[in-house]
C-alpha cells in the first residue's frame, strides 16, 4: 500500500429519515487492486457505492481523489473523475439496441451533432468480443436473457475508460463460464491500473478475486483485512455479528401429521415456521408468489389435502392461504384507504350482513386486530399512510389474520422496519405458530432465519439448494449454500 488511494471516503455518514444508513465509514480504493465490500442486505454497501458514484451525497465526512478533497454532486461529476458503476438493478433501456445502450448519454458524434452509428457498432463489437460474447450490436436489449444483459452493463462501463469501477453483485445472474470471463476482464483492468470495488455474497468468489476485504454491518465497518489472511468463516462471523450459535425454539409441529401445505420440495406442517433463506434474486419472491397464485407454478400445490394450483389468488385465500408481500408500498397497502379498511379488506365477505357492511361491525373487527397486534394508531379511521413502517406491516399482517389462514406466507416480513418492531413481529410469528398456523417466510438475514425458523430452506438461482433444521444449521453453511452451492 505504497500508492496514494485513487478514491477515499473518510468518516462518511449518511442519514435517511428514520435510519442511519452509514456511520463514519472509512474506505479506500487503490489503483490496480480489487477491494471487496461485504455485508448483509441493508448493511449499507449500496449506499456507500451510491455516495462514491455521486448518486447520493454524504451527510457527514469527506471524499478524496488522489489525496485531494472532492465533491461529487452528481453522476456527471463522478463521470469526470472516471468513476463507473455497474448496478445490481440493471439500468438498461430494453427498447434500445446493445450499441445504443452502451453509448446512451455518451454517443459518439460525427460533425458534432450526428450520432456515429457505425462507430458505435464497431466499438460495441470490440467490447463484446473482449467479453467473449459477440452479441450483434443491433440486438434489442429487451430480447436478451438476464445474464447477457449483465454483460452489456459491464461493456457499458468498459466503454467509458474508467479509473474506478464499482460492481454491485455483477455475477448474480451469470453462469459459471460467464463468471470466468468477467474475472479475466477484471484482472485485465487491474493490470491496467484500474481500481475495482466488488460487492458479492459469494465468499469463494470474493476470496479468489479480492486483494482487500471490508465488512459492513448496520452502516459501520466491522472488519477489514487483506484477502490472503482470512477465510469465509471470518467474513460471515463479522457479517452476522455474533458467534455462530443459534437458539432454536421448541417447535409446535409434530412430524407424524400430514403436511398442511405441499408444493414440490416444500412441505409445511401446522404449527411450524419455515424460513426461506436466500440472496436477492434467488427466487424467493417468485416461489411465494407462485404459491399464492400470482404466477404459474410448475409443481402442483396441495393445501390441506386439496389441490389448489388451478385456483386464482382469491380462491386460494378462501381456502386458507394468505401472503404478506415483500413491498408494503407496492403490493401491501392500499394508501387511499384508512387503517381499518386496509385491515378488513380481505375479510369483507365475512363481515357483511346480507351484502351490507355496517360501519360498527367493521370498526369493531378492525379495532380488535389493532389491539391484538399492538398497532400504534388512534383508531381504525386514521390514514394508513400516517403510520410507521412497523405498524403498517402489522396492519398488512392483521389483514391476513382476519381471513383465519392455515398457512401464512411472509416475504421479508421485517424489511425496512426498526429493531423494536422486528422483535414484535418475531414474537407474533411464534405465537401464531403455537396456535397452529404454518408459516413460510423469506429472508436474507441469517440471524433472522436462525432465530425464528424451525427449519430452513436455502434458495439459490430459483431452486431449493439445501434444507436443514434450525438446530443443524451453521451460518457458514447457509451462506455457502445461498452463494450458489459452491460449498
Amino acid at each position: 500500500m505504497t500508492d496514494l488511494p485513487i478514491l477515499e471516503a473518510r468518516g462518511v455518514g449518511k442519514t435517511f429519515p428514520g435510519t442511519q444508513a452509514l456511520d463514519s465509514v472509512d474506505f479506500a480504493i487503490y489503483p490496480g487492486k480489487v477491494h471487496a465490500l461485504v455485508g448483509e442486505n441493508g448493511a449499507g454497501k449500496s449506499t456507500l457505492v451510491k455516495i462514491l458514484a455521486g448518486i447520493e451525497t454524504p451527510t457527514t465526512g469527506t471524499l478524496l481523489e488522489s489525496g485531494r478533497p472532492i465533491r461529487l454532486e452528481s453522476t456527471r461529476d463522478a463521470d469526470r473523475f472516471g468513476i463507473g458503476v455497474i448496478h445490481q438493478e440493471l439500468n438498461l433501456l430494453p427498447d434500445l439496441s446493445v450499441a445504443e445502450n452502451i453509448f446512451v448519454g455518451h454517443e459518439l458524434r460525427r460533425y458534432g451533432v450526428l450520432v456515429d452509428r457505425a462507430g458505435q457498432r464497431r466499438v460495441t463489437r470490440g467490447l463484446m468480443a473482449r467479453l467473449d460474447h459477440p452479441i450483434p450490436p443491433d440486438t434489442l436489449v429487451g430480447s436478451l436473457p438476464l445474464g447477457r444483459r449483465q454483460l452489456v452493463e459491464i461493456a457499458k462501463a468498459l466503454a467509458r475508460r474508467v479509473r474506478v469501477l464499482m460492481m454491485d453483485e455483477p455475477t448474480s445472474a451469470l453462469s459459471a463460464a460467464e463468471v470466468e470471463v468477467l474475472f479475466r476482464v477484471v484482472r485485465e483492468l487491474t493490470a491496467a491500473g484500474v481500481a475495482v470495488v466488488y460487492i458479492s455474497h459469494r465468499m469463494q468468489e470474493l476470496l479468489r478475486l479480492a486483494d482487500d476485504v471490508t465488512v459492513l454491518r448496520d452502516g459501520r465497518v466491522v472488519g477489514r483485512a487483506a484477502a490472503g489472511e482470512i477465510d469465509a468463516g471470518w467474513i460471515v462471523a463479522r457479517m452476522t455479528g455474533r458467534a455462530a450459535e443459534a437458539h432454536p425454539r421448541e417447535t409446535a409441529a409434530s412430524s407424524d401429521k400430514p403436511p398442511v401445505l405441499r408444493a414440490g420440495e416444500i412441505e409445511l406442517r401446522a404449527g411450524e415456521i419455515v424460513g426461506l433463506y436466500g440472496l436477492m434474486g434467488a427466487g424467493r419472491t417468485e416461489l411465494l408468489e407462485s404459491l399464492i397464485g400470482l404466477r404459474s407454478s410448475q409443481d402442483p400445490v396441495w393445501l390441506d389435502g386439496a389441490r389448489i394450483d388451478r385456483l386464482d389468488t382469491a380462491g386460494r385465500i378462501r381456502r386458507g392461504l394468505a401472503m404478506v408481500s415483500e413491498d408494503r408500498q407496492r403490493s401491501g397497502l392500499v394508501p387511499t384507504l384508512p387503517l381499518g379498511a386496509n385491515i378488513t379488506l380481505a375479510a369483507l365477505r365475512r363481515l357483511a350482513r346480507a351484502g351490507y357492511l355496517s360501519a360498527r361491525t367493521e370498526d369493531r373487527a378492525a379495532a380488535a386486530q389493532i389491539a391484538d397486534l399492538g398497532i400504534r394508531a388512534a383508531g381504525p379511521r386514521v390514514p394508513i399512510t400516517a403510520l410507521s413502517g412497523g405498524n403498517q406491516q402489522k396492519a398488512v399482517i392483521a389483514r391476513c389474520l382476519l381471513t383465519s389462514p392455515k398457512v401464512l406466507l411472509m416475504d421479508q416480513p421485517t424489511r425496512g422496519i426498526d429493531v423494536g418492531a422486528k422483535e414484535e413481529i418475531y414474537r407474533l410469528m411464534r405465537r401464531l405458530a403455537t396456535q397452529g398456523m404454518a408459516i413460510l417466510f423469506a429472508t436474507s438475514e441469517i440471524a433472522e432465519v436462525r432465530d425464528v425458523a424451525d427449519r430452513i430452506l436455502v434458495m439459490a438461482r430459483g431452486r431449493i439448494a439445501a434444507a436443514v433444521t434450525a438446530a443443524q444449521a451453521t451460518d457458514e453453511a447457509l451462506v455457502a449454500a445461498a452463494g450458489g452451492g459452491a460449498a
Partner: protein
Amino acid sequence: MYAQFGYQRSPWRTHSCVPRRVSTRRLCALRRRAPLLLVLALASLFAACSPAPPARKTIAIITPSHDNPFFKAEADAAAARAGELGYLTTVNSHDDDAHRQDELIDVAVANRASAIVLDNAGADATVAALRKAKAAGIPCFLIDREINATGVAVAQIVSNNYQGAQLGGQEFVRLMGEKGSYLELLGRESDNNAQIRTRGFHDVIDRYPGLILAGQQSANWSQTEGFQKMETMIQAHHGVKGVIAGNDTMALGARAALEAAGLDKVIVVGFDGSPDAIAAVGRGALEATVLQPASVIARLAVEEVHKFLTTGATGAPEKQSIDCELVTPANAAEFGLFGRK
C-alpha cells in the same frame, strides 16, 4: 448519470407476459400473431369494399355527416341522379372537418374522379383544396354552402337561406298577429348559415315594434340542447307567445319542452324542412317551417356536371341561388324529402 435517469422496468410489469394462466399465454401468442391477423383482416375488408376498376366515369360526392337527414337526402339525391345518368359514384362524409375534407378531395384526385360534388366544410378552409382539384383537372360543383372565392368551382348552387329566413319571418309575424314577446334559438354561432338565418328573421320581424325579443340562446343545432335551453329560458321569461328556431331539430326540442311545461299554445317556427318537421307541421306540432330544396339542388348539380362533361360548359352562371319554400299545415302534404313530391 445513467444510473439516475436509467429506465427501470417495474417488476410487476416485467412479468406481465409470463403466462400466469392459460388465457394469458394464449394472449401472448395472439399478440405475436396480431400484426399478421390485422393485415389479413384489413385485406379482406378492402377486398369486400373496393369497387371494380372504373370502366365508367365516377363522381365523388362529399357532404357533412349523414346523421343529419338533410345531408343524407342531399347525398342520396345526387347519387341517384348520377346513377340515372350512367355515372358511378363515391359518397363520403367530412363531418365538418376541413382537414378530413382535404383528404377526401386528395383521394378523389388520386382515383381520377371525373367531377366532385361537394357540400363544403368551411367557406375559407375549402378554397385551397378546391384549387388543388382544379389544378388536377377535376371540376368541382359546390352545393348548399358557398365559398369565399369565385372561379375555383364550376358552380356554386345554394338555397337562398336569406330569402328562406325572410319567408319564415313573415309567417312568424303573421302567426304572432304582429305583437307579443318571443324567444329565439340560434344554430351554432360559428356557422355562417346560423348568422344568415337570424339576420333574415330579424330583417322582417324587427320592422314590427309590437314584437319583442325576450331571449336569445344558441342550442348548437341540437334537439337535446334545444329542449334543455328552452326549459330554462321559459323560467325567466313568462308569457312568451312564440319561438323561432334556426333549424327544425332545435324547434322540435323546444316544442317538447313547451309541451312538458303545459305551454301548448306557443307558436313554434323552424327551418330546413326535414321529414320529421314536415310531419310535425302536418299534425300541428310546428306551426311552420322553411324547406330548403336540398334534393333539388343536388340533382341540379349532377345535371350540370353531366352537361359540363359532355359539352364543356354548364350554360349557367357560377353562383346560382335556389329559393326556399314555406311549409304550413295547409301544404305540408305536398312535400317529401327536401323537395316537392
